[in-house]
């Protein structure tokens, strides 16, 4: 019987949650790398037992860990992330020039075709690639070299490259997103990039329609329709039907359109999920109710999913990399909270149960569907 493996990164270590296809009983493994921040873990889509983890610390810097046995054992691989050439400057919070400084890896995205190739999105924002299983890393400097680079400015969480989407139908195309620069697309395997922020409007920046400067929190796609992108921006849920060339708002009936996560149902490309958060100054759910919102129409019309989720006195947050879906016949949805809960739904969001309740604050959730 098939099963799932949920990879959970937290403020104090990594946890691996496994279940069979029923998804009602779970084994919990961890903490791995106890005491370290695990920003993200992800497995290779073509070798599911090959996992990568971003292990980071304000004291000791960045480590990358790799497992070849599904997370039972790990080995450290390369942790040398050096910007290409003279790094130059971006803008600091106060608008003054600030040199690019590597801080940590936010997101790891294994190649769709080669288990030794993996991409890393880092803070200060840049994209790196390894073609030797993580032993060495090279910057894809065309992104940071984009003409707007000196204008990029950190969001409250830092100048982080947090989203990497690889186009399954066009090997040379990828999308990335940076807080608070915006979204970018490459059509030549990461050599050159174009900003894809037309249609985004951010009233909190000097030019609300600027080419860059938008605080994009997350982008998601369905692999069958890579030209259709969904975005949770700082405020606003957005949609593009032309690979990011233009965006339109689909926040519709949401109680608030601030939030971090967004994801797409594994089998229904027009079914999407967000978790509304009250505001950017109050990072918790509206009314103390933790509600996932689902749209079956690709946006605009939303329904609250509450069964099994706390509906009073709940003031957790759900961070941008902390939602994922499995691809079992009945699509499973998963998310983790800053309160240490990981919730799972085995029925596309209709009902929810906590897999674990008391982990450290959850930074990221990924899911592997196992044969």
């Amino acid at each position, binding site marked *: 019987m098939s099963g799932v493996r949920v990879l959970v990164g937290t403020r104090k270590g990594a946890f691996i949650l496994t279940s069979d296809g029923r998804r009602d009983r779970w084994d919990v493994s961890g903490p791995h790398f106890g005491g370290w921040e695990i920003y993200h873990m992800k497995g290779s889509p073509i070798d599911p037992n090959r996992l990568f983890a971003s292990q980071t*610390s*304000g*004291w*000791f*810097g960045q*480590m990358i860990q790799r497992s070849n046995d599904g997370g039972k054992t790990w080995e450290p691989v390369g*942790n040398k992330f*050096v910007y290409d050439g003279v790094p130059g400057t971006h803008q600091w919070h106060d608008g003054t020039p600030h040199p690019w400084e590597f801080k940590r890896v936010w997101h790891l995205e294994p190649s769709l075709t080669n288990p030794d190739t993996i991409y890393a999105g880092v803070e200060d924002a840049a994209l790196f690639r390894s073609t030797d299983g993580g032993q060495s890393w090279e910057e894809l400097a065309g992104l940071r070299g984009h003409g707007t680079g000196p204008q990029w400015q950190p969001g409250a969480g830092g100048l982080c490259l947090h989203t990497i989407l690889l186009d399954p139908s066009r090997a040379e195309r990828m999308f990335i997103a940076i807080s608070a620069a915006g979204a970018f697309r490459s059509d030549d395997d990461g050599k050159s990039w174009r900003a894809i922020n037309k249609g985004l409007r951010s009233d909190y920046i000097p030019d609300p329609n600027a080419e860059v400067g938008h605080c994009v929190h997350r982008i998601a796609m369905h692999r069958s329709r890579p030209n259709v992108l969904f975005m949770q921006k700082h405020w606003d849920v957005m949609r593009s039907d032309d690979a990011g060339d233009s965006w339109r708002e689909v926040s519709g009936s949401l109680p608030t359109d601030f939030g971090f996560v967004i994801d797409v149902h594994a089998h229904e490309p027009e079914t999407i999920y967000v978790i509304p958060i009250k505001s950017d100054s109050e990072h918790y759910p509206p009314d103390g109710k933790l509600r996932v919102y689902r749209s079956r129409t690709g946006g605009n019309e939303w329904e609250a999913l509450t069964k099994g989720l706390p509906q009073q006195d709940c003031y957790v947050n759900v961070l941008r990399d902390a939602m994922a879906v499995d691809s079992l016949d009945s699509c499973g949805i998963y998310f983790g909270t800053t309160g240490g809960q990981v919730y799972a739904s085995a029925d596309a969001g209709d009902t929810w149960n906590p897999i674990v309740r008391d982990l450290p604050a959850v930074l990221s959730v990924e899911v592997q569907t196992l044969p």
Partner: protein
Amino acid sequence: MIRVLLPPHLRTLAHVGHEVELELQGPVTLRSVLDALEAKYPVLRGTIRDHVSQQRRPFLRFFACEQDLSHDSPDTMLPDAVAGGAEPLIVLAAIAGG
């Protein structure tokens, strides 16, 4: 023989105990001791000092013989007691954070 005390997380990474011992030829300086430490335990590269600039990571400090050596030049000779193995070089992590 040079003795080095590491903070707990670095001991875990390097799979070593409270104290490591290094054999060193030539001058005993912070730089030469850290070079030898990283040569023996490559996993520590980048965790104590930056890969490129070789600057000490901000939340770590170096102590020996009750002296704070953190701001000394990396090429300053370490105390004789460290060079002779009577006292360890201590890599100390700041007690901070949550």
